């Protein structure tokens, strides 16, 4: 045995001892990104199976006219759940799982930035999704369509619990999406291998970075909309009821502000897979790296300017239609740039028609078709003609199946050897591909014609004389062919996992870092971390896998039994900090369970239990970091290869500080959605101006202004260098911030209790919710300030270790800003808009 091998085995044993996840029930305490990523992927495929069965039920029902297979009530639940499951429980979690598994390995890190948040997000996803599936099994599933349009989903027309299950279940699941977005951004920003500047980052990371930002800004409007609709259903506050100043179109705006970017949120990670796998199989580096980055960013922005094309028929002025039509056509250009880069890479390379490549070619064909019909739908007159017909169903399936499922199946075959360490003995993949490809096109190509012949969406049956009979029959036959293809794919994957032969390392000859790990990878990914000097690190240093395994990289040692990885400066990728990561713990599971109690209690209308569970969730979240950190300054510490860096707790650019900044971006988006809703109702909704305006209260306004100003000053002073080095002052200024928040809370309470009944008019309802939103932030501000004081008293804070106070300061200042804006809106809007 050589010295190198001995070093590698010794280091592996040391690292494995501290990174290992316990077995048996202890597995539930896993926070490691490889395990959580795999869980996300497997769970997403289970939900895909459920969504697929629902699709089969739909096609069985529509195969023949006047079918008695499903009644209208069940059919409504089936198509609603099909869309909901596929969009929220399959597509997004699948790429989240893939991102969690791959990102740290591609970036040369040992884990994601917040492993406990990964685990918490997974449990929220599982529990939230389970609420929906339990609803389906009990016959109580949502039945108003996956977009839950009001007034159909309002209490008047959906009086049961069905719509509540959607609103509460999906909001629960979205915790997972938002936490994944924050974690992905911070991981890509900070946890890269030294030397990996932004221009050397794998394209997959660029795609995920942009996608995560889109999630951060895209999901809050949906969450706000869902909360408003649930409040309307539960407490009769009329946001969407036009008889009391509400407007159903507000729901459509909030939903599609999320819903259209959502299509690109799903497409971009899949396009990232194409940009990663295609060059490897074409045996040349990708053409147009810079232009692909440019097109991803452009696509992300443009995708937020399209949402109204889902609402072209609701009655919108011609000029607004023209804005959104123009933006909808423009989005085709950055997509085309990527297509040309891929085609150019194929043309300039020596492509191999291996199984993943077959799925990529399937993607090219299907997605291009979906893109073309997308441009057709962007044109207003055509859109009006086919609105709500099966043409739209065909289009969206070409986009989503073509733009997501085909690349993801390519990804499955490409990375499966990495996940399992196994290669197939006999592959059914080619047969599965052809069945899926032919079955898909038979199902949906013909559906364009069904739609053009006038068949509306969401109808559960049709007459024998409609002329749609044979088209529907062929579509249904195609769908069953496709289902057989997916079944074969599942069998193929199971066979490879259970009976595959040992795969050789880096079987595709790839040049990205994930293939430098062992297969399957150990929990710590790399025994030591690489230095990156180009976009193709594995091609630069052929011996990299063995060099890293034997500890000839950064952090090739174990220090104080701590789990460590490196943090870098965002743009240059220069070594900046040593980041300590947590190990296995049950806390995320317990926190998710308590969060689940909160959501289920809301669903069952046990509001006292819900309030208690909310408080318990906050307390449990605080326990995550109560004893986490150092009790003394450590200064710069060895990072390996002769370099040193401070621990992350002693820098101002620590991952958790970034996480708070990003969380506040998402929060600000939610807040803006709320403010937009208020303004929208005032300008557009019927039955305005409101019959009663809120009387300004000088004492309440003064309390709020003085309180929030104190919170701002307390926050700013609490992180001043002179204050941080003085233990007494370090506790004084957070106290000032807390006192400020308490004063503002009193002011908000005075305003809210003096208001007329908010169920009387949307103006009062929107004002009440806006004030409650800010009051909640002020309440949490007290918690943050208290936590900073406790941590300071515990010895975890010093002039160098000020992370807790910096995070709190961000919250205090943000709350002060939105509180003052709320006050301006509440008292200024009536003045500006006139009564």
């Amino acid at each position: 045995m050589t010295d190198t091998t001995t070093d590698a085995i010794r280091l592996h044993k040391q690292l494995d001892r501290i990174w290992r996840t316990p077995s048996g029930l202890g597995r539930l305490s896993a926070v490691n990104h490889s395990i959580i990523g795999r869980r996300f992927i497997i769970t997403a495929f289970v939900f895909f199976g459920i969504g697929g069965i629902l699709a089969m039920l739909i096609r069985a029902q529509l195969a023949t006219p006047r079918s008695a297979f499903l009644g209208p009530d069940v059919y409504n639940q089936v198509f609603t759940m099909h869309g909901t499951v596929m969009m929220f429980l399959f597509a997004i979690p699948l790429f989240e799982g893939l991102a969690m598994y791959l990102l740290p390995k591609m970036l040369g890190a040992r884990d994601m930035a917040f492993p406990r948040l990964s685990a918490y997000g997974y449990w929220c996803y599982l529990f939230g999704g389970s609420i929906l599936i339990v609803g389906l099994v009990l016959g109580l599933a949502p039945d108003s369509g996956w977009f839950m349009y009001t007034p159909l989903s309002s209490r008047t027309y959906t009086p049961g619990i069905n719509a509540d299950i959607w609103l509460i279940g999906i909001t629960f699941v979205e915790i997972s999406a938002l936490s994944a977005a924050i974690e992905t951004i911070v991981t890509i920003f900070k946890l890269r291998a030294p030397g990996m500047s932004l221009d050397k980052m794998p394209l997959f990371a660029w795609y995920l970075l942009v996608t995560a930002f889109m999630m951060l800004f895209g999901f809050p409007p949906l969450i706000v909309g869902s909360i408003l609709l649930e409040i309307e259903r539960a407490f009769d506050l009329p946001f969407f009821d036009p008889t009391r100043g509400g407007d159903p179109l507000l729901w459509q705006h909030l939903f599609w502000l999320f819903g259209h970017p959502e299509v690109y949120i799903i497409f971009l990670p899949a396009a990232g897979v194409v940009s990663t796998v295609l060059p490897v199989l074409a045996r040349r580096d990708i053409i147009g790296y810079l232009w692909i980055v440019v097109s991803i960013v452009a696509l992300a922005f443009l995708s937020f300017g399209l949402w109204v094309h889902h609402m072209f028929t609701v009655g919108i002025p011609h000029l607004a239609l023209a804005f959104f039509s123009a933006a909808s056509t423009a989005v085709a250009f950055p997509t085309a740039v990527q297509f040309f880069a891929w085609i150019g890479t194929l043309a300039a390379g020596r492509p191999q028609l291996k199984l993943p490549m077959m799925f990529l070619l399937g993607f090219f064909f299907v997605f291009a078709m979906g893109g073309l019909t997308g441009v057709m739908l962007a044109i207003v007159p055509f859109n009006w003609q086919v609105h709500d017909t099966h043409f739209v169903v065909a289009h969206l399936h070409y986009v989503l199946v073509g733009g997501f499922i085909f690349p993801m199946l390519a990804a499955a075959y490409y990375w499966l050897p990495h996940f399992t360490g196994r290669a197939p003995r006999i592959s059914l993949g080619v047969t599965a591909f052809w069945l899926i490809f032919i079955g898909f096109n038979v199902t949906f190509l013909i559906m364009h014609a069904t739609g053009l012949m006038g068949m509306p969406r969401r109808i559960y049956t049709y007459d024998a004389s409609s002329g749609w009979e044979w088209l529907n029959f062929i579509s249904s036959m195609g769908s069953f062919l496709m289902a057989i293809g997916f079944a074969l794919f599942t069998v193929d994957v199971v066979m490879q996992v259970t009976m595959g032969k040992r795969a050789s390392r880096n079987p595709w000859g790839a040049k990205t870092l994930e293939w430098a790990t062992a297969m399957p990878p150990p929990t710590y990914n790399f025994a030591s971390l690489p230095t990156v000097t180009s976009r193709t690190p594995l091609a630069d240093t052929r011996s990299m896998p063995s060099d890293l395994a034997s500890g000839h990289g950064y952090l090739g040692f174990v220090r104080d039994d701590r789990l460590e990885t490196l943090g870098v400066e965002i743009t240059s990728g220069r070594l900046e900090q040593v980041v300590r990561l947590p190990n296995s713990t049950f806390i995320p599971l317990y926190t998710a369970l308590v969060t689940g109690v909160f959501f289920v209690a809301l669903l069952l209308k046990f509001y006292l239990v819900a309030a208690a569970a909310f408080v318990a969730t906050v307390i449990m979240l605080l326990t995550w970091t109560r004893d986490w950190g150092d009790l003394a300054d450590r200064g710069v510490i060895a990072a390996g290869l002769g370099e040193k860096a401070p621990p992350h707790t002693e820098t101002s650019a620590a991952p958790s500080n970034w996480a708070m900044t990003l969380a506040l971006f998402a929060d600000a988006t939610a807040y803006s959605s709320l403010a937009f809703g208020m303004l929208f109702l005032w300008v557009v909704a019927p039955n305005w101006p409101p019959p009663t305006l809120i009387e300004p209260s000088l004492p309440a306004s003064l309390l709020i202004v003085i309180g929030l100003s104190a919170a701002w000053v307390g926050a700013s002073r609490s992180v001043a260098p002179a204050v941080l080095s003085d233990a007494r002052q370090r506790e004084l200024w957070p106290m000032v911030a807390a006192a400020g928040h308490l004063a503002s809370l009193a002011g908000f309470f005075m305003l809210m209790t003096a208001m007329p009944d908010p169920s009387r008019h949307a103006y009062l309802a929107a004002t009440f919710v806006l004030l409650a939103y800010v009051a909640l932030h002020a309440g949490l501000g007290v918690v943050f300030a208290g936590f900073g004081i406790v941590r300071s008293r515990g010895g975890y804070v010093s002039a160098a270790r000020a992370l807790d106070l910096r995070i709190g300061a961000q919250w205090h200042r943000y709350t002060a800003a939105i509180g003052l804006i709320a006050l301006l809106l509440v008292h200024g809007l009536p003045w500006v808009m006139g009564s």
Partner: protein
Amino acid sequence: MTGSRNQAFLFMILGFAVWAAAFSILYGVQGTGCELGWHRQTIGPLSLLRILLIVIWGAHLAALAWVYWCCRAALAVTSARAMPEAFLWRAASALTITAAVATVWIGFALLVPSICVI
């Protein structure tokens, strides 16, 4: 150098941030103007609302021109081999041009259709 790098990264999104502002403000002012009747007041052959929208459009195009000028100026003093600065400034320039084209494209609509007719 760190400042230049971080600035370049911010400029990568600045162009499209201007586009997003143009899009939101144009849509918001169009809706508000129709509600408040600004389209019924005329200045010469054009309505007050259309003039206002064109001014907003023009102001955003001018802002984009300024962003592009900043990118080119930064790129001119950055060595082509200085990475990642050169990459980031090139990306920022390309994104700003793309954002400008997108702004011109959506703004064409201001010149033709009726503003408030549904």
